[in-house]
């Protein structure tokens, strides 16, 4: 029983402060999960390294206009075998974009090492499902980079729909444009630690009835 016998709204006995606080915390959990369309809080098994997280937050702020309807997502790549040549890396991303949303903006962030001799020519392939040869899904994008540091490479959002499993694999293929530097291709991209590549995505709820127009 609180200090007053009845709640001013409903007349029920008022709650003791601790009980009210516990109820408020429970309400807060429900409202947040509801607002994020989650049934329970996510269990984070492999949080990204703090330094990579800090950089991603900085990128989210970069040029970030007022938050739009929908979500902005940063997805860090896991690299099949970091020891292989960074220029032939296979980047794997785990994306759980809900069916009710569609992807409308995608950029791949890569960090080019200072050892870059001249211009680096990069092609990005979408790796086919179930390990089929690269290119089976065709070339996604090609870029030329002439300076070391971070590069945000636009990708066609239409080519990035992840598999049913939510896994997206991108195969990098890069080489110096100047052929007599080919031997150093291995040391040109930084794919480990807090400079590992990541995808910056923007997803938006699908407009109701959007698909119908297409079917007609």
């Amino acid at each position: 029983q609180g200090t007053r016998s009845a709640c001013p709204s409903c007349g029920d006995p008022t709650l003791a402060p601790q009980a009210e606080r516990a109820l408020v915390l429970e309400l807060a959990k429900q409202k947040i999960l509801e607002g994020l369309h989650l049934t329970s809080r996510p269990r984070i098994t492999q949080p990204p390294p703090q330094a990579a997280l800090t950089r991603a937050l900085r990128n989210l702020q970069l040029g970030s206009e007022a938050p739009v309807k929908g979500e902005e997502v940063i997805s860090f790549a896991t690299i099949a075998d970091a020891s292989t040549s960074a220029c032939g890396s296979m980047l794997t991303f785990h994306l759980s974009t809900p069916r009710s949303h569609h992807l409308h903006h995608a950029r791949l962030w890569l960090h080019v090492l200072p050892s870059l001799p001249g211009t680096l020519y990069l092609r990005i392939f979408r790796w086919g499902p179930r390990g089929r040869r690269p290119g089976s899904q065709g070339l996604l994008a090609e870029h030329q980079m002439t300076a070391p540091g971070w590069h945000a490479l636009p990708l066609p959002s239409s080519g990035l729909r992840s598999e049913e499993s939510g896994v997206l694999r991108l195969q990098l293929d890069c080489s110096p444009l100047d052929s007599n530097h080919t031997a150093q291709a291995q040391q040109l991209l930084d794919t480990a630690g807090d400079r590992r590549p990541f995808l910056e995505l923007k997803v938006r709820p699908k407009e109701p009835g959007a698909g119908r127009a297409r079917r007609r």
Partner: protein
Amino acid sequence: TPTCDPETPLCCRRDHYVDFQELGWQDWILQPEGYQLNYCSGQCPPHLAGSPGIAASFHSAVFSLLKANHPWTLSTSCCVPTARRPLSLLYLDRDGNVVKTDVPDMVVEACGCS
């Protein structure tokens, strides 16, 4: 809208700050550190129907209706949110991706009598 205090029986906004650390959720909600979970509570006697938070003209319209008809009809007026704003969240999803999103209508800013 008045903020509730123990002596206020009338419609007001009850403020609660929820710290995500207190929920044990600071490991996956990166920003902000907490949020204002406010709610509306209190009585709405007939003469307050349609009051704060809604245009005064609506209030006078309701008041003249009440005077014209049986002044103390049985229908009750309730203390409800009349202004709310979104909450911007930055969190880790189950795959360890960083997601930034706006959750609409999460923070009650004003209460009024329906």
